[in-house]
């Protein structure tokens, strides 16, 4: 008696789950896993893709590139992966079709609270113990880039905090908890309460955004078409407007 009731429950659950799965696999839906820094710019790009492919619905999911790579490795059903760096794309190299295409670039800048109260002018100012600075931890991509740039400039940074992602760096700058932080140009462009102080020689460390269709996609043609679309005219305009560099 008890077992039968449990079995019935199990069947009900399984039915509910397969219904969800069926929805996600509809032919006219394209799931894009995209780096968090692409969150705003990808909306118009997806819209123009939908215009060009009537009946297609683009669903984008944003998170840190490493998180997304982990999800893909764990078998998340998706069609396209747009990463914020090539190293992360390399981690899922076995699960993509074709060669990843670099569709955007990004460079670092100093972010300061609006009005720049601590009067930060150069990267060297961030070595001043009187200035509270926050950067990305060297373990994460933006931190790696920051470390490279500081090394190139011959500056030893003295951060008050090494954050796990750009969002946490921006949050501390925007709230005035920090006098300065190092983030990507596009991050400043999409944030309120912060302004950019350009870093001389920032172009020496360029971050590349690769995109690729995933091997697990049910609609490989559509996925490839979206990757191509990212390098198209409409996408380039939107990316440039958001502060990205175009390769």
């Amino acid at each position: 008696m008890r077992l039968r009731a449990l079995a019935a429950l199990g069947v009900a659950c399984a039915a509910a789950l397969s219904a969800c799965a069926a929805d996600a696999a509809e032919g006219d839906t394209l799931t894009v896993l995209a780096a968090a820094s692409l969150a705003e710019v990808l909306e118009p790009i997806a819209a123009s893709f939908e215009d060009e492919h009537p009946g297609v619905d683009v669903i984008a999911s944003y998170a840190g590139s490493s998180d997304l790579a982990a999800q893909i490795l764990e078998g998340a059903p998706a069609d396209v992966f747009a990463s914020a760096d090539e190293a992360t794309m390399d981690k899922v190299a076995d699960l993509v079709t074709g060669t990843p295409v670099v569709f955007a670039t990004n460079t670092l800048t100093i972010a300061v609270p609006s009005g720049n109260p601590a009067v930060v002018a150069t990267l060297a100012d961030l070595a001043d113990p009187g200035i509270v600075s926050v950067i990305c931890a060297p373990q994460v991509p933006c931190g790696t880039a920051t470390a490279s740039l500081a090394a190139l400039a011959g500056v030893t940074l003295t951060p008050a905090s090494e954050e796990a992602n750009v969002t946490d760096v921006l949050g501390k700058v925007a709230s005035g908890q920090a006098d300065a932080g190092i983030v990507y140009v596009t991050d400043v462009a999409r944030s309120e309460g912060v302004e950019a102080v350009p870093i001389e020689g920032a172009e020496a460390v360029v971050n590349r955004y690769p995109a690729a269709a995933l091997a697990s996609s049910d609609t490989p043609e559509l996925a490839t078409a979206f990757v191509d679309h990212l390098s198209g005219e409409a996408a380039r305009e939107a990316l440039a407007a958001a502060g990205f560099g175009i390769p």
Partner: protein
Amino acid sequence: MSGPRWLVPLALLGALLVAAPLVGLMARASWGELWTLITAPESLEALALSLRTAVASTALVIVLGVPLGFALRAVHGRVRAALRAVLLAPLVLPPVVGGLALLYAFGRRGLIGAPLEDAGISVAYTTAAVVLAQTFVAMPFMVVSIESALAARGERREAIAATLGASRTRILARITLPALGPALATGAVLAFARALGEFGATLTFAGSLAGVTRTAPLEIYLARETDPDAAVALSLVLLVVAVAVVAIAYRPAAMRGVR
């Protein structure tokens, strides 16, 4: 007390829901390297910092939370209800909200933080900030524990002690506090666990710098992106602590020295 039989499958499903993630975490662990991962310098540094700060905040929670529990018993009616709601809020507040609240109070531009900053005292980005954040979220456990223990025991012995000529301080030290021992221990253990697990408020408010503010949960948060195995290993350590703490805090009455 056993309910109708149809409760059984629901209970099993509930158990599955709770146990599955824990089992999943253990299944994901690379057991062979576990010791190496836990004893890696970054992990040890984070664990040591977590331990230090959690001990400090538990001490603060005892020193401040016990008087708060008494204060809650001293007021009545709506005042008590309102005060309780405020004091217990951190218990149910989303961690990030707690972080924001701390930021606007003790941050560099905060209500209290700004004047402190002008006086040359900087809380942000220090280990003290971590302790502050942990104390904020852990305090309610002690307040609740003390208040309900006080409510349950009445004040008869205290009243009798007063007729014997004892001062309030003497009554507190000799009668009330000893009687509150078990409640104090439970509150302290739960507060310690909560402090050890504190993440949101620390991340928002204290920052993340190895050895200074990067506690174990923050290290997990960081390692999750770059070294998932290390993240899982540290998570297991915290999981073991959590299970141990719950086992102690909710131990059977017989083991609490209750007669």
